[in-house]
């Protein structure tokens, strides 16, 4: 009986250590992410890792004290990356590695001579 509880404790502490290592590595990705979109994806994964770490801690301590925090993170964790992708990444264009240049914007109202505009 006590042997199995010891095995559970070792497995759960190993799980918490794995989640912590993953979070530290992900901080490196946020530090040197080439564009803001990489940082937005990393923010999503950080929220998922916080939920996983709190879950592992709850399984270790056998209490449900942090469940509302996990619920709020699952509910609102995506708003930061949606805001970045919607408002910041359009202005922030890094050095693009693709050979094709960025596409020109849509033509204005005055340059519609060669094209058939909708009447």
């Amino acid at each position: 009986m006590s042997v199995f509880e010891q095995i559970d404790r070792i497995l759960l502490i190993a799980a918490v250590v794995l989640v912590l290592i993953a979070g530290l590595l992900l901080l490196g990705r946020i530090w040197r992410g080439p564009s803001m979109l990489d940082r937005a994806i990393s923010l999503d994964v950080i929220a998922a890792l916080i939920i996983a770490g709190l879950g592992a801690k709850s399984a270790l301590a056998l209490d449900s004290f942090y469940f509302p925090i996990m619920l709020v993170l699952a509910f609102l964790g995506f708003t930061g990356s949606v805001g970045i992708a919607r408002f910041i990444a359009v202005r922030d264009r890094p050095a693009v590695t693709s050979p094709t240049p960025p596409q020109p914007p849509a033509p204005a109202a005055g340059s519609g001579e060669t094209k058939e505009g909708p009447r």
Partner: protein
Amino acid sequence: MNAWLQILDTAGAVLVLLGAAICLLGVIGMLRLPDVLSRSHAATKPQTLGMILVLAGVALRLRTGMDLATLVLIGFFQMLTGPVASHLVARSAYRTGQVDHDELLFDELDEQLTDEKYPPPARRSDSKG
């Protein structure tokens, strides 16, 4: 009876450890993959599979009705809000030119978004008045 509860506890601990290992694997993929879209592919593994495994392990260890309902709600909202953020990030990556067009086998958005012969119809009708 007590032996079955002990088996449930150990199975829950094993599931939590599996979920944590999948989280670490997804983060390693995010560190090593070269592109925004491929990093987004690697980022979905901790968000869905790793977190579902961790929540299942916690649910096997805490066997109360209220805790089970809260864990199901956490998983539901995470799977509901994950595709929204991922879709917006991929769309913004495509529109700001961070997608390598030569690496793609099929590019079904190309004619609709980036061809000059087909500008977005809503903007043209707005500018024409």
